[in-house]
């Protein structure tokens, strides 16, 4: 077993995720089949529902925007060996920052509001992740457990804020006041009519910038180097003079800030007010996105697009096949996480063995090893 070589990069980055996705699709296809529907019709409905026309694509891009942010949040933490499972809570609390800024400045212009709201989202989301980060670094409490707890605390906090503090007089539901028209983030449809009536907005540019920013941060800065060293080997990083606890705190805060961008997109660009559960589990989708995208911005961009397409296509599914809806997508998503994240051992050894036979020098090496073993 130990003779197996690591997979070549292309297989690790492209082939393995695709195999895992296929397996997830096959298993969910079997579920659909068992229920008495044609899985291929369902897949086709999802694809056309996601990319069929400008309206569909607009929605796909809107979902993808959120998933880029949460995917990057999970990935950045993962590079430091941390599992940030609290994207939901961080994004939720970040909504407080965005709505406060937007309502306070709503008489100005969105060009003024957007950068301030962006900062507020980062600040609030970051703060909500800073505490678990601090507790892990200084008190040794496991960041996974604390971020789970913080998701629930965030949910209770936001219900309280929406019901008791932000709800304007005369509104019955738990939601904040609407942001003035001029203060809202412009929709892409204003520039490209093909995206009319879809929620995709200029936040998508922030998402692209975030992808580039994370790439530079992780691979082209001292901080990124220290981050990866800590992720690979915390003992080595300590001996190299890197302060692990400082790194953990900064990384978690940045990760929370990235997750907070979901609030920027949703509150300023889509809902134009703060509503209950606007995050809609985007934080958990981020885990799937980061796993599929191999924690790399390019992979994350593709994976976010894939899950955006699955979500939007899943919405359209019910109009094509009555009775099938987006819950199928939740199953696919869960299976992707299971296969790529937790069952890596399913394909990897077999793939390693297969690929070894295809490269001549590796084959020669394997034969040599075999002969050495049989001679000794």
């Amino acid at each position, binding site marked *: *077993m*130990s003779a197996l070589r690591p997979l070549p990069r292309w297989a690790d980055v492209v082939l393995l995720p695709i195999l895992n996705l296929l397996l997830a699709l096959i298993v969910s296809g079997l*579920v659909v089949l068992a*229920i008495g529907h044609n899985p291929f019709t369902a897949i086709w409905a999802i694809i056309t529902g996601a990319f069929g026309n400008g309206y569909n694509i607009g929605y796909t891009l809107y979902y993808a925007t959120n998933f880029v942010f949460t995917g990057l949040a999970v990935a950045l933490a993962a590079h430091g060996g941390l*599992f940030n*499972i609290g994207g939901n809570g961080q994004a939720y609390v970040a909504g407080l920052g965005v709505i406060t800024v937007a309502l306070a400045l709503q008489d100005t212009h969105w060009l003024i509001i957007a950068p301030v709201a962006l900062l507020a989202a980062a600040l609030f989301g970051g703060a909500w992740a800073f505490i678990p980060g601090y*507790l892990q670094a200084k*008190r*040794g*409490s*496991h960041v*996974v*457990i*604390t971020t*789970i*707890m*913080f998701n*629930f*605390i965030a949910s*209770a*906090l936001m*219900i*309280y804020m929406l019901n*008791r503090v932000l709800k304007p007089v005369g509104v019955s539901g738990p939601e904040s006041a609407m942001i003035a028209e001029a203060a809202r983030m412009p929709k892409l449809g204003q520039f490209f009519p093909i995206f009319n009536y879809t929620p995709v907005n200029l936040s998508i540019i922030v998402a692209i910038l975030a992808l580039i920013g994370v790439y530079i941060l992780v691979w082209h800065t001292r901080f990124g180097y220290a981050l990866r060293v800590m992720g690979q080997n915390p003992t080595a990083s300590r001996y190299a003079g890197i302060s692990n606890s400082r790194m953990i705190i900064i990384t978690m805060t940045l990760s929370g800030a990235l997750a907070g961008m979901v609030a920027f997109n949703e509150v300023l660009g889509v809902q134009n007010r703060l509503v209950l559960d606007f995050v809609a589990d985007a934080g*958990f989708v981020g*885990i799937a996105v980061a*796993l599929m995208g191999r924690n790399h911005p390019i992979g994350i961009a593709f994976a976010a697009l894939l899950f955006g397409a699955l979500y939007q296509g899943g919405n359209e599914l019910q109009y094509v096949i009555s*009775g099938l*809806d987006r*819950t*199928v*997508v*939740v*199953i696919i*998503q*869960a*299976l992707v*996480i*299971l296969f790529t*994240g*937790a*069952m*890596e*051992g*399913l394909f990897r050894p077999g793939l390693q063995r297969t690929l070894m036979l295809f490269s001549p020098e590796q084959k020669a090496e394997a034969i040599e090893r075999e002969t050495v073993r049989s001679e000794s």
Partner: protein
Amino acid sequence: MDFAFVLSLLDATLRLSTPLLLACLAGLYSERAGVFDIGLEGKMLMAAFAAGAMAAVTGSAWAGLGAALVISVMTAVLQGAAAITLRGNQLIAGVAINMLAAGLTTFLGQQWFRQGGRTPQLSGEGRFGAIQLPFAQELAGVPIIGPIYADLISGHYILVYIAFLAVPITAYVLFRTRFGLRLRAVGENPKAVDTAGISVNRLRYQAVLITGLLCGFAGAYFSIAQGSGFGNNMTAGRGFIALAALIFAKWKPVPAMFTCLLFGFLEALQIRFQSAQIAGIDIPVQAIQALPYVLTVILLAGFIGKAVGPKAGGVAYSKER
């Protein structure tokens, strides 16, 4: 705050802490054996659905319980395969199980019963009824002790008694049997167990199986005892409260019981306050809701004692290293 009110509050506490306790003990076996389990929620949800669906089809609560146990154990084995045999990331396996349960139960529920993800309303034999303990009627008239016995201790579903019986059994198994010793050892130092010639993975699978069984009881409690049928996302985060309780109890069975009672009491309080509209004491309901999580974070941070989990938790055992 008269005697009857206190009694009914404590009665509600018992009922609400039962699923927490079952799930908490479930997690205890798994985590003591070195397998982190954040998938308690998912297994309970699967079990709740299986119980609701089976009881609706057969009309028998016992068949429902059986289905819950089978499905929950199967889910646990799937999670175990990822975490133990394939040496995958245990935390991610748990996340996947939770998500899979949420998707699968809603999907199948909608497909099979066409009631928006709910299973049909159960009645009669389809649900567990309250059990009257002997002499409950006769003793009810005795002051103080009578009502306590008749109203508080007697008259619960069988699963409530199973849950509280599971506490001494777990304590005995864990601290007084060979299996328990090995289980604890495998969570602290699997290499030592392996050196002694005992299979680490076999022990871990055994632990995961027990986890599955207990989650099955917990899930069934939601849909065929406390409730009368399965509803979407019925467990509503109870698996995570149970996880919090497990940490709060420092992975020990008897403290686990008291923690679950405390968290159940908080939930009972919160329900009372909502219906009675006495939240005007300026403690928002949400603060009580968040209290179990806040307490757990504070404990984890080491401000009130220290919670240190099993040492080998979260790491798959591999012989070669």
